[in-house]
């Protein structure tokens, strides 16, 4: 492989390519086809990790590590944060605004892919140079030499771009407060004036097996109280009522034991 021109990669790399390439394509399809945004994000993260392995296999050691740190580490986490902010349950609408747009898009995509792949297959490449010579002094050293000589201007522009992006994100997400924030005293006075729920809200329910915040506490008459669960969970319909579970399982246990005991008595 240290020749200037190689003709084929090692068998190990070929095996790795076919296995991980399949994973990458499945991940990409999952990104497009999964209904929920979280599943799409996780599929995309898988594809990106596979691509990082491919970079490492092709001698781009620095890029492989950067791919994991920047893409799967930073960018995908940013995506997940926004998905959480916007709402995990916000599934895609399946209604077509333009008639037949989905099918046309799929056909266009397939045609584009065929053109692209046919163009590459026309190239007829039989040998390749390999990075043995370029990476001889180390991949990171080689990249650094290029970045700080040939591409130094682009590198400096990159700094300006990053600062602009940071400022832009802050400007876009900043929200000006239009009215004064109420103090705690004003809020409590307002509660007393309106006369509803003056003491603190009751705590969520604590059961033998469950004490999470989505379990409502019980009122004296045995009905679950909506006040004990936060508004957000109630709005999402994620309140989990487990108050009946213990009694149900107890009844089940009793029934089973009487059955077994009864059978034994019959057997005697």
């Amino acid at each position: 492989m240290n020749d200037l021109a190689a003709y084929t990669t090692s068998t190990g790399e070929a095996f790795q390519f076919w296995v991980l390439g399949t994973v990458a394509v499945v991940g990409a399809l999952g990104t497009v086809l999964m209904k929920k945004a979280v599943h799409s994000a996780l599929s995309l993260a898988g594809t990106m990790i596979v691509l990082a392995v491919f970079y490492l296999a092709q001698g781009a050691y620095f890029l492989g590590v950067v791919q994991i740190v920047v893409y799967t580490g930073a960018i995908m986490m940013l995506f997940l944060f926004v998905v959480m902010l916007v709402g995990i349950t916000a599934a895609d609408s399946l209604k077509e605004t333009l008639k037949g747009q989905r099918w046309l898009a799929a056909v266009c995509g397939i045609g584009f892919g065929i053109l692209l792949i046919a163009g590459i297959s026309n190239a007829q490449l039989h040998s390749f140079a390999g990075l043995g010579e370029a990476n001889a002094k180390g991949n990171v050293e080689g990249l650094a030499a290029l970045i700080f000589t040939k591409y130094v201007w682009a590198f400096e522009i990159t700094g300006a771009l990053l600062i602009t992006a940071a400022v832009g994100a802050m400007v876009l997400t900043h929200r000006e407060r239009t009215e004064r924030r109420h103090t705690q005293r004003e809020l409590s006075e307002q509660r007393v004036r309106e006369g509803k729920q003056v003491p603190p809200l009751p705590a969520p329910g604590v059961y033998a097996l469950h004490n999470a915040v989505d379990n409502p506490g019980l009122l004296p008459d045995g009905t679950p109280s909506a006040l004990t669960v936060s508004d957000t969970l109630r709005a999402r319909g994620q309140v989990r009522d487990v108050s009946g579970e213990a009694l149900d399982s107890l009844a089940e246990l009793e029934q089973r034991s009487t059955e077994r005991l009864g059978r034994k008595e019959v057997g005697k």
Partner: protein
Amino acid sequence: MNPVNYLYLSALLFTIGAAGVLIRRNAIVVFMCIELMLNASNLAFVTFSRLHGNLDGQIIAFFTMVVAAAEVVVGLAIIVTIFRSRHSASVDDASLMKL
């Protein structure tokens, strides 16, 4: 195996990403598909770098990553802003110039 196979994979991933941008209506998923296309082009750059035996392709891929990071930050900020004012992340709902 010839490294050109990496180029085929790159083209395939790029195509899937492009089709996703056209098909999906959720702005966040559209954005993820754009990321997929950027990643596919990065793979092509790294493969070209190997085929030619110099590191320029890797440098370009590195700059692509920087631009992608900046783009994600601004794009997601825009999506969050739109979601705040319209309570929806669907690109169909953002068809009017004002609320």
